[in-house]
């Protein structure tokens, strides 16, 4: 039986603009950042475009940069954003 997690999603910069919102809450039965990204891509439209594989999308879990294999947990915060350009 799959576990369901409530996840707080955040989007920044060009990804935020493409999706049209900066944050949303979702319930998911996915277990990793990669699977969650795939689930969002499966929504189609702007999600499929902004988060498409082959695009440079950086991911953070609970405000730490993580790779796609990082595991979700209940109430976690996941962010999707383009390469950073500060300084």
């Amino acid at each position, binding site marked *: 039986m799959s576990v369901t997690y409530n996840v707080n999603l955040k989007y920044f*910069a*060009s990804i935020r603009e493409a999706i049209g919102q900066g944050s949303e809450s979702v319930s998911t039965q996915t277990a990793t950042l990669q699977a969650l990204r795939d689930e969002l891509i499966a929504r189609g439209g702007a999600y499929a475009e902004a988060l498409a594989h082959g695009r440079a999308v950086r991911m953070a879990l609970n*405000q*730490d940069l993580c790779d796609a294999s990082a595991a979700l947990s209940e109430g976690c915060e996941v962010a999707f*954003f*383009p*390469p950073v350009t*500060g300084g």
Partner: protein
Amino acid sequence: MSFTVSIQTQDFDVSQELAVLRAGDARVGAVCSFLGTVRERNDGSSVASMELEHYPGMTEKSISAMMDEAKKRFDIFAARVIHRVGLLHPEDQIVFVAVTSAHRGESFKACEFLMDYLKTQAPFWKKEVTPEGARWVDARVSDDQALARWGIEASNSTAP
């Protein structure tokens, strides 16, 4: 001694920041700082203004982590990072990094390390307004290469 980060819209006074950073610490014999400012041209276009976005919470967390790493690597006493966000124009101050140490070598190195780290690991994004319209600034491979010199692999600019 103090290691502090500020993310702010307002401008800052460099000489005041330097004075505060080394105040009351007579061990200090070297203060090294870097100031980043907005250029009027980028990637072949003139830049009228730029908007800096960040990820509140993660920004402070990532810069604190890079200061912890700098403390481990270099013999330094204090460090200060200021990064502005919001609307900025050419000649404006954007980013400030300053470090104190007993001798110059450690603070020179730590200052450069902190800037190289910030460029590829801290969640800031620039959007420029040019005559061709507004555009998000692209990450540079050279910034990943700069961090690689310190033995840290960055893959900020690369697509998967």
